[in-house]
């Protein structure tokens, strides 16, 4: 289908095909409006864009206007699309406009070297949308347009909706009320072909794409060149890497599986004997006294035993730094082995000789700390869950410290089990593995010790500062408007500045010019009898001077921003019972950035990539927070780490209540278990936090002391655990607005009552001449000065913004009942 068929099928309310090749009017192919009128001298019969008819070239003094009408009166939905060929070198081109009056219009233009801009003004209120990219078709037509749907604006280029941003965000959802002409052209140089206006029903993306496809805009041909050449290389050396592969035979890892018999150890009388293997040698026969084992959360397990030594020299070193395995052997009444139970696996640390008894006392450790000291952090990360940040913990810490730091951010504990295996488990009580009820067998050992109020923490205040550099980029419009005008110059009230003088002054300050300078040129045609009877005739020097100049200038600087995050982690249930028990932590992250380069470099022609025009400052901003170790992502990870650490601290202190008792020996009890003790006067459930075992060589009856951790809050129990995510970024406050337009003045000396010359002036300073020079004693030094405004202190100085956040913590309430 031809483009016009596709276009008309979509029912435009106005369709200017612009296929006229002469005349003063143009037709509306939609049949809605009467013919429009050409103004100025457009060029007809130019090559078209749609494969049908021709296009029309408009210079900056020609246009095509429809008759005045109210076709878009109050519309909420409308579309305008047209083919245009323009050049970005022209600062601003009006592609299409509908103007009711200066406070009510819709305008589609190019600005800023090829940015497409849609602007609607209704009752004086603006909404402006711009494309994020520039477009400079130069030698080919673009199919450009916009769709307006209740304030939502899409801008299309060649059938595709392109990225845009909101430059002015006032809420305008409706076309102005009133009537006025539709215009094409004006204020620029461009070729325009078929132009379409739709209303009431919005065009879809597919509609616009279909229109563009129907035009069959030719794609430039690309002719690949086949270029042949050859490479010449010098003599090469090829080193050989000879590797010998090491092969191993099949391996076999035996398992040592021990099964404890409850029928034995829960019986009235169970017999046990200790067995110790030291450096691979069974030394059980030399044991005297007690074998003691003491294990606790987050600590190395310790074992001690005493050995008779044979007569002769004693080498204590032969007992130290040796592997040791301690087993308690369950035996029947006849002394026969029923089953062994490994109780400790470790390494001896120190041996002491008792010369009176002829024994050596040996102490061993399962060396929890030593497991981590030389361990790579990546391996620790696999073993220890939790959080870690160099901004919260010491980055130079050794492996043990690193592991402890990670563990301090989650409610977990670690220990080494009886086989020497690292165990990391939650410390929260779970359903009781076993309930001990026969308190008569505790031997009066059952005790409850409550955590002191001073050890509890209910509120943790984290003062977290994030310091970074905000890269700011300010653009202002600079205007030199020669108030003399053409007549003032012709009448001798002052000279005109040369363009070269202006260009030199523009580039001679700390601001960077963005885009080209637009000059107000002298007339290019002779003018007779103007300005009170003067004649003007252009000559070859006329283009070198101007009546005014306009450009955009930019300035960049870095501003230090401190985000202050007061973060509260609160256990409200616990605070109900014991009052507020506060503690504080302070952390700070400073995002690394070298502001110097940003401020020094003045060669740019747009805002920094990624910078956004912020309404709070009317400047482009880009926060330098991308550094891997000190940027926002790392900072937020540190915040989460600090909050989790605070939460864990509160929870850990709240489980400081202890119940201890000595039950009948049960070898299956270990630090991972939750136990319940249920007596007449005390009933408690908690996780084992410490376990001590003693077994004499001859008594056969192991003693076991169990210590349970009981978590309590004592409050109403309504607290909940808030999800822990990084606090939100503080809101940036509005700065006091400063002008984004700067005007340079013109001053003339040599006239009566003119003020004396002032070197602080900027703008164009000149002198009257000829008959207009009425005071030859007060002449100025002729110069063009651009003295741009300074960036205000509030925009330069370091600033602080704050955001408070609070996180609730629910302290577990383990079972604990007391009665008398």
């Amino acid at each position, binding site marked *: 289908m031809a483009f016009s068929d596709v276009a008309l099928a979509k029912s435009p309310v106005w369709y200017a095909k612009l296929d006229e090749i002469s005349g003063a009017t143009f037709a509306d192919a939609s049949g809605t409006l009467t013919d429009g009128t050409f103004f100025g001298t457009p060029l007809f019969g130019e090559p078209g864009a749609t494969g049908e008819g021709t296009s029309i070239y408009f210079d900056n003094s020609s246009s095509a206007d429809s008759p005045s009408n109210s076709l878009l009166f109050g519309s909420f939905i409308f579309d305008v699309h047209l083919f245009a060929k323009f050049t970005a070198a022209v600062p601003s081109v009006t592609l299409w406009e509908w103007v009711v009056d200066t406070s009510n219009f819709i305008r589609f233009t190019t600005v800023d070297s090829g940015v497409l801009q849609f602007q609607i003004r209704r009752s004086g209120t603006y909404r402006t949308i711009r494309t994020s990219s520039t477009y400079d078709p130069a030698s080919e037509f673009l199919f450009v347009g916009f769709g307006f749907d209740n304030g939502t604006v899409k801008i299309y280029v060649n059938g595709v909706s392109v990225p845009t941003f909101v430059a002015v965000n006032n809420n305008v959802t409706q076309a102005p009320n009133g009537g006025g002409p539709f215009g094409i052209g004006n204020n620029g140089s461009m070729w325009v072909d078929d132009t379409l206006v739709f209303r009431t029903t919005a065009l879809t993306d597919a509609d616009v794409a279909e229109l563009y496809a129907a035009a069959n805009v030719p794609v430039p041909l690309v002719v690949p060149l086949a270029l042949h050449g050859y490479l010449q290389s010098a003599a090469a050396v090829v080193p050989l890497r000879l590797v010998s592969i090491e092969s*191993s035979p*099949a*391996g076999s890892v*035996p398992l040592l*599986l*021990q099964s404890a018999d409850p029928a034995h150890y829960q019986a009235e009388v169970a017999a046990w004997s200790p067995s110790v293997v030291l450096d691979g040698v069974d030394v059980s026969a030399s044991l005297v006294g007690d074998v003691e084992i003491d294990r606790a959360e987050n600590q190395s397990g310790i074992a001690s035993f005493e050995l008779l030594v044979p007569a002769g020299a004693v080498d204590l070193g032969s007992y130290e730094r040796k592997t040791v395995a301690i087993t308690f052997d369950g035996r029947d009444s006849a002394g026969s082995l*029923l089953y062994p139970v490994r109780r400790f696996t470790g390494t001896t640390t120190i041996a002491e000789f008792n010369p009176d008894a002829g024994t050596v006392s040996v102490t061993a450790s399962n060396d929890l700390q030593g*497991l981590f000291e030389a361990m790579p952090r990546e*391996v620790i990360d696999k073993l220890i869950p939790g959080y870690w940040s160099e901004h919260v913990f010491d980055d130079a810490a050794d492996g043990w410290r690193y592991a402890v730091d990670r563990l301090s951010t989650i409610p977990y504990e670690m220990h080494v089990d009886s*086989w020497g295996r690292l165990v990391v488990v939650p410390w929260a009580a779970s359903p009781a593995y076993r309930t001990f009820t026969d308190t008569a067998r505790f031997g009066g050992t059952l005790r409850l010790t409550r955590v002191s109020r001073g050890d509890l923490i209910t509120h943790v205040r984290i003062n977290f500062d994030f310091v970074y550099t905000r890269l700011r980029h300010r653009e202002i419009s600079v205007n030199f408007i020669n108030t003399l005008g053409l007549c003032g110059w012709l009448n001798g009230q002052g000279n005109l500045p040369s363009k070269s003088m202006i260009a030199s002054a523009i580039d001679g300050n700390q601001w960077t010019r963005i885009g080209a300078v637009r000059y107000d040129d002298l007339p290019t045609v002779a003018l007779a009898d103007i300005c009170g009877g003067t004649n003007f005739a252009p000559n070859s020097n006329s283009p070198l001077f101007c009546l005014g100049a306009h450009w955009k200038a930019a300035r960049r600087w870095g501003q230090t921003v401190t985000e202050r995050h007061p973060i509260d982690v609160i256990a409200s249930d616990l605070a109900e019972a014991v009052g507020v028990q506060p503690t504080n932590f302070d952390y700070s992250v400073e995002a690394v950035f070298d502001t110097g380069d940003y401020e020094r470099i003045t060669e740019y022609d747009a805002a920094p990539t990624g910078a956004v025009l912020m309404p709070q400052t009317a400047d482009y901003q880009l926060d330098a927070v991308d550094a891997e170790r000190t940027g926002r992502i790392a900072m937020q990870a540190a915040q989460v780490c600090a909050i989790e650490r605070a939460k864990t601290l509160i929870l850990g202190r709240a489980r400081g209540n202890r119940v201890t008792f000595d039950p009948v020996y049960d070898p299956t009890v270990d630090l991972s278990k939750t136990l319940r003790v249920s007596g007449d006067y005390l009933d408690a459930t908690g996780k084992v936090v410490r376990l001590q075992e003693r077994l004499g060589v001859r008594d056969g009856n192991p003693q076991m002391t169990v210590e349970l951790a009981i978590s309590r809050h004592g409050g109403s129990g309504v607290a909940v655990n808030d999800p822990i995510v990084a606090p939100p970024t503080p809101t940036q406050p509005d700065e006091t607005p400063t002008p984004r337009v700067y005007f340079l003045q013109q001053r003339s000396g040599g006239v009566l009552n003119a003020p004396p010359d002032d070197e602080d002036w900027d703008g164009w300073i000149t002198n009257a001449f000829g008959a207009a020079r009425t005071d030859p004693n007060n002449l100025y030094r002729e110069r063009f000065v651009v003295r741009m405004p300074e960036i205000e202190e509030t925009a330069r100085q370091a600033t602080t913004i704050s955001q408070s956040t609070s996180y609730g913590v629910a302290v577990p309430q383990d079972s604990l009942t007391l009665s008398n």
Partner: protein
Amino acid sequence: MADVPYVFRDAALTEPFDPVDGGIGAWSKQGDTAVGVFYVGATDAGFKLQATSNPGVDPIALSIVDSSPGSGVEATAIRLAVSEAGLAAATPGAALNIGDTVLGGAVNAIEVWFDWANSIGGGEYTEISIDIVPLDEVPV
């Protein structure tokens, strides 16, 4: 006895496994489950482990071997997995493939977890072992 190549007792690969020091231990009371772990890896990060049979193609397989089937602990009471959490979904008695390549360095070592569903009377049982196919240690 000599170390079992590429098998370690600890995650940092500092304690090569030597059966003379005893097997990989686990214990529980009858009716409970016991767990244990060891590590397969190469200490040198510049090397990797692959099955000798067809390096890089055949899986590195670990199988459960019972030296006295029909008595004591049976192979079907053992499950293998590469994480403690993975044991629950493991098939009793089934072999474990830990991939066709294990990169060197402690951080790349593979955890081999086993659990034992203890349904047997009190005692110590040594008839179960975990066998590993022959391995090549080759440069990365």
